[in-house]
């Protein structure tokens, strides 16, 4: 390959001539990420080890672990970590259970038109502004919302069901918001399974569920891991869903961060909670890579 290029190009260093140096292409992006991503994140970590002083943002250089000790010594804060992780886990499982079938239908339907239409619907749902979708959720699930008024109208219930401003509302809201990510991660994985594997097993007498359990599900695991990681990371880091659907009654880590900063002005303490949220999200990532190596046998 390279030799033919040389004979055509005929220059002294033909490879260079035909394929010019590339490094300069990446300089702007690297500078941008260094200046506006790596340094800010480092500043956030730095300030979280600084002494808490209300209303002070500037770096005082007063190294202390007080902020972190406070988080782990007060139930208010470490319970929020548990709550965030717990909600994230429940949301991830629900998304997997209701997302897998839809991803399977999109990947396996024999009508290409239907597959494209469904994919566009999922993509549109994914891309639509979260706050707008939550508006719809709140109109549906409020005490005077559509679900409750219809149920009371037909006499099924006497008092409105508490669908919102509690942990249930937060979970439903998060499922609505993160479900498209799960589905899109799964479609690719299920599609890459050769259908003749399933068909062979079926023609040899396997039941549908046996095929699903022993062939389709194990082979789609890379997509399952990708989707669960993404959904978990998104669910624990969401501010807007617990704020609106939980009505500030379900206090998760992002809510704490915002309260510490916007209401109390304790930047250092807020930054410490943010660092913990960051590390939790990163740990999910690390676990995911570990699980991937062990179970998927490096197929991703």
């Amino acid at each position, binding site marked *: 390959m390279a030799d033919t290029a040389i004979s055509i190009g005929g220059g002294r260093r033909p490879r260079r001539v035909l394929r010019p140096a590339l490094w300069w292409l990446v300089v702007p992006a690297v500078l941008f990420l260094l200046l506006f991503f790596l340094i800010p994140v480092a500043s956030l970590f730095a300030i979280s080890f600084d002494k808490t002083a209300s209303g002070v943002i500037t770096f005082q250089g007063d190294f202390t672990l007080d902020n972190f000790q406070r988080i782990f010594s007060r139930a208010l804060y470490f319970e929020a970590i548990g709550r965030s992780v717990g909600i994230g886990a429940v949301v991830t499982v629900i998304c997997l259970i209701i997302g897998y079938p839809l991803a399977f239908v999109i990947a396996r339907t024999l009508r290409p038109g239907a597959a494209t239409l469904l994919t566009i619907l999922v993509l549109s749902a994914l*891309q639509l*502004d979260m706050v707008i979708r939550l508006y719809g959720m709140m109109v*549906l699930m409020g005490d005077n919302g559509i679900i409750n008024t219809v149920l009371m109208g037909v006499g099924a219930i006497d008092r409105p069901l508490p669908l919102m401003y509690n942990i249930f509302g937060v979970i439903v809201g998060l499922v609505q918001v993160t479900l498209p990510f799960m589905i899109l991660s799964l479609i690719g994985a299920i599609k890459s399974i050769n259908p003749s594997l399933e068909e062979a097993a079926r023609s040899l007498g396997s039941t549908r569920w046996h095929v699903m359990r022993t062939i389709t599900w194990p082979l789609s695991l890379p997509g399952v891991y990708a989707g669960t990681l993404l959904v978990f990371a998104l669910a624990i880091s969401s501010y807007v869903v617990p704020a609106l659907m939980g009505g500030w009654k379900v206090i998760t880590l992002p809510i704490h961060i915002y309260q510490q900063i916007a209401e109390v002005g304790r930047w250092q303490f807020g930054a410490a909670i943010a660092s913990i949220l960051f590390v939790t999200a990163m740990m999910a990532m690390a676990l995911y890579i570990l699980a991937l190596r062990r179970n998927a046998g490096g197929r991703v």
Partner: protein
Amino acid sequence: MHDVNPIPMTFKLVSAVALVILLVPVLVVVMAGLNSGDFLTFPPEGVSLRWVISFFRSKIFLPAFGVSFGLALLTTLISTVLGTMTAIFLTRSKSRVKELLRGIIVLPVVLPGVVLGLALYIFYVWTGVGLARSFWGLLIGHVLVTLPFIVATITASLVDFDLSVEEAARSLGATPWQAFRKVTLPIIAPGVSAGTIFAFIISFGQFELTLFLSTPDIQTLPIAIYTSLRYAFEPTAAAAGIFAIALVITSTLVASRLVNIKNLLNRR
């Protein structure tokens, strides 16, 4: 065609549930925006353009829509240029640094939006060059979160690109820039356009990152709707939502014409 392994009925039923969860809230927003009453009841009272007109007269939602639109346009422009350059480097370079770079580019997506917004805000205050609570500070944040999507989409279309076509142009005397503009760019254009559309939509609907960076006088649409939702279900917000929904659906349709969505979802 006889299907040896048809889709199980349970799967179809659960799929229907998933679609209801995904789409009903969107339908509700459209209904609330076109409803004639003050509250959305079921069944709706009637159809009117009352709230749409109120949106066009609104001193909050219409300017917010404009800010979001302009911000998304600028974000997309910068992100596309940076992202195209990066994607070319990532697909062609043999350097070992590129895996590290690929990891760093994806990080802003994994990083919680609230955390990234806070980190940027602290950094802006420390440097004191006036980026804190400014349009430009917001723009930088939006470029950060859209860049990974642009790089992913363009990388996907560059992987299929046959480099010998560009080399042929070069050997016939084209400068690197000419070869890129006349040969490479037209071939990868669908991928680039799809990437720009995704970036636009992501920036337009960005909430979490914007929370710490927005100012009272430059409100984006998600922030304006969020603020109104804290107090009441303002039907004008739903009417603004209808325009956002139309924008997203149109752009997704255009993007799906440009690139084969199925290819984008397939694993490489």
